[in-house]
């Protein structure tokens, strides 16, 4: 019935975790444990970090050939007549048809080895965003990397490893503003799937803390947006739990200096959802660097690390909409194997991971650790 709370006003345990942000200087009300605070964020933006020059210098031959082009080239006169209904049909429904160009009608994105396509155009430019993952700047192999050309960061830093960019940078759909990332972004926003929470504990000062722990969780609550479609900061998000434990909870050590959080590197399993795919790849040697806005409400930066090649190829291969993306799966499959630069297979020596960088933007959030004992919502 309707009365609210009878006698014992239940203590509210959620104060365990709290964003600090604007309130930080006002009070230490949100202290988690003696002398420290906890910051929370939810990642909203996750975009493959690509360097696009003004005149396409990084792709001197032009963009990569698309699957459609190869499909059309491969059609006989009769097949073209059939596909166009003897020229009556100008709007070709190419997408499903164009993919089925394997020798036995296989979908070449799901079976990328069923045909051999001309080599794919990849990035030949000098610059890329990203980080030096293997500690090596000359392009030589190391214990955990295969030989590969290194990039220079646009800020001049040498030794940047970003073979994922090299792979997809000349593909129309993967350039800035391209469909796969945007569609995935939109899908995450509306579905609330694949949402990553970042919890930073051990914060002594939100702008400068030497020794903090960063934990990555998955949220089960959706984004709360403002009228313009931006997430509202300081919303609460419950952690995805499984058998009483968080389903995702890998941690990294790090520090905040002048509002910039930088983590050490470590393997982190993150939830991912995009283009109707769920994935939870472990990003090896993952590092996060992000700048927290002075008011603490937002943070943006980059996640770098080795991305599992098979997971990526599987993601691309299963996507629909290759017409707009202009992927050519068989050529990308070959190129990915040539470009993979991380974690060689001990037996074959074939590298299994692609160095990668992702631009992220996060919003201050309360990361809620659900506790069944205190779940006390009044449902009136």
């Amino acid at each position, binding site marked *: 019935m309707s009365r609210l709370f009878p006698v014992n006003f239940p203590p*509210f345990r959620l104060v365990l975790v709290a964003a600090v942000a604007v309130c930080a200087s006002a009070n230490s009300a949100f202290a988690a444990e003696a002398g420290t605070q906890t910051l929370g964020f939810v990642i909203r933006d996750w975009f493959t970090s690509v360097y696009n020059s003004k005149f396409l210098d990084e792709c001197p031959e032009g963009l990569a050939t698309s699957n459609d082009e190869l499909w059309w080239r491969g059609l006989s006169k009769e097949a073209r007549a059939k596909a166009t209904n003897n020229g009556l049909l100008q709007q070709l429904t190419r997408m499903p048809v164009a993919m089925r160009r394997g020798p036995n009608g296989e979908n070449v994105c799901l079976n990328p080895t069923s045909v051999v396509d001309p080599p794919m155009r990849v990035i030949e430019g000098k610059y890329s965003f990203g980080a030096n993952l293997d500690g090596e700047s000359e392009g030589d192999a190391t214990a955990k990397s295969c030989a590969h050309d290194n990039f220079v960061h646009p800020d001049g830093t040498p030794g940047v490893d970003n073979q994922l960019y090299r792979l997809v940078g000349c593909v129309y759909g993967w350039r800035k503003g391209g469909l796969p990332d945007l569609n995935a972004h939109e899908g995450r926003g509306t579905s609330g799937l694949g949402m990553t929470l970042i919890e930073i504990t051990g914060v002594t000062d939100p702008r400068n803390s030497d020794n903090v722990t960063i934990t990555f969780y998955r949220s089960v609550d959706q984004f709360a947006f403002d009228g313009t479609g931006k997430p509202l900061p300081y919303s*609460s998000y419950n952690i995805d739990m499984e058998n009483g434990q968080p389903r995702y909870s890998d941690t990294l050590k790090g520090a905040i200096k002048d509002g910039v959080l930088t983590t050490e590197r470590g393997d982190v399993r993150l939830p991912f959802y995009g283009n109707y795919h769920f994935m939870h790849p472990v990003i090896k040697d993952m590092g996060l660097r992000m700048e927290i806005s002075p008011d603490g409400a937002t943070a943006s930066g980059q996640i770098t690390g080795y991305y599992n090649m098979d997971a990526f190829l599987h993601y691309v291969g299963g996507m629909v909409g290759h017409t707009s993306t202009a992927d050519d799966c068989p050529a990308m499959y070959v190129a990915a194997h040539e470009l993979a630069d991380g974690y060689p297979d001990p037996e074959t020596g074939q590298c299994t991971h692609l160095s990668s960088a992702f631009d992220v933007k996060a919003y201050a959030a309360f990361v809620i650790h659900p506790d069944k004992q205190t779940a006390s919502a009044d449902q009136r």
Partner: protein
Amino acid sequence: MRKSIFHMIAAVAAAISLSACDGPREPEATGGPPAMRRLSNDQYRNIIADVFGPQITVAGQADSLKRSEGMLAVGAQTAEITPSGFEKFYGMAKSIAAQVVSESNRAVTFPCEPKDAVGADDACARTFFAGAGRLLYRRPLAQDELTLAVETARRAAESSGDFYRGVAVSLANMLVAPQFLFITDEVEPDPAAAGLVRLTGFAKAARLSFFLWNTTPDDALLRAAESGDLHTQKGVSAQVERMMASHRLEAGVRAFFEDFLHFEQFETLEKDTIIYPAFTVKVVEDSKEQLLRTVVSLLLDRKQDYREIFTTRDTFVTGSLARVYRVPTSRPSGEAWVPYRFPDNDPRAGIITQIGFAAVASHPGRSSPTLRGRAIRENLLCQKVPDPPGDVDFSLFESADALKKTARERLTIHRTAPACAGCHKITDPIGLGLENLDGLGQLRTTENEAVIDPSGDLDGVEFSNAADLGKALHDNPAATSCVVGRLASYALGRSSNEERNYVQYLEESFASDGYRFPDLMRRIATGDALFAVTPAPTQLVSAQSSTPEMERSP
């Protein structure tokens, strides 16, 4: 819901304290002239829901009442029904009547079935109108009222070939009748005092039910009126105890606080969403409910000291509110309410730091120490703040420049220019105590990068921030005398300003009852003043002549 042992002990203790202690004694009641109060929108809705069931939708709103002497409940006794206002009532009535007789609702709205649904059935119609009419008119229908309702229903049923349509036609007209729309103090000769009058039992029943439940008297109360019980102290006490034990008491408490806290201001509450992206329509709705939940939980469920509404750290939030307060919640989406306690060192405590207060007394894009200070003075302390003079020289403000970053700096002129200072020195210093809350009520420590100083003093009591200001209000005697006076006005339906002795008695009782709000309601409900009535004035109330001089028609 389980009743806690605490509840019971408290109730017993309260009963003992009332009966056993001498305490303050109610002065002889002055009474007011019989009055005629227009139903408020909420009362109208409550009645329809109580008489016909909550499944009936009341589409539309009647004209709102006008606040008088601080309360809409007082304005009800002078409210008129304009042509467009009547049209609204008529539209609502027709829609309600159609729903009441609709096939899907008949099972709960009709006590009988017509012999033949395609024609008239006087007997069934009579049963229906006798039952519903008694609840709507708050007394049994007179013979000719019942006859008209039944005959009209018959004729309409005959012409339309539909029994239910006939009933709807009569019912719609009852719902716009003055007997329904105006709660009228009917009087009868007082057998105990020759030449004087008293309220009829039914008028007393209406007083009690609108005061305690904000709705029409239920069957038991009407029976008590019929039997004459309401003319005895014992009978009144029994009804009051029954009513106070009912869950409907919460509706009564909510209705009072909606009036007391000026909830009509929420209708025009608006914020700029570029400046305050977290502001949504849901925030408006939830912030109203938050105030009420806070108050009901504190005063009714936990039976705490009224003054704690200014200091309590316990409240309830939805996800939308949590985002504005920037506090965590386990239920960030949906409608769920979750209790939340502001930490001890948070500057937010008490209702004045809630969105429902801080954002309402602000501008769409900025906070307003003046509006907030005025709201505290006028609404919570019942102190009149004069209106600004018409000839303010605003050129004084033109010296306000970009160097003045905080409201305190900008408002210095208010408190120093002689023309302004008189009033602003009673509003701004307390309003500045809430400056840690921006125009939406979000916590902030700086404005334009300058640190905000929220300290000040309330009538000589210094405070350091908003929570501290709440403590000063808690201890300010005006805060309790204000709510007592307003509750008395609310119950009596007229300003209690003239009844100083009575209000003083209530104030003393309130203090001796430990400032328990339900006890204060009980004092009023069982006291003599609630029913006291003087004979109607026979003289014409001389209104200012407002009609123009008319020419003789040719």
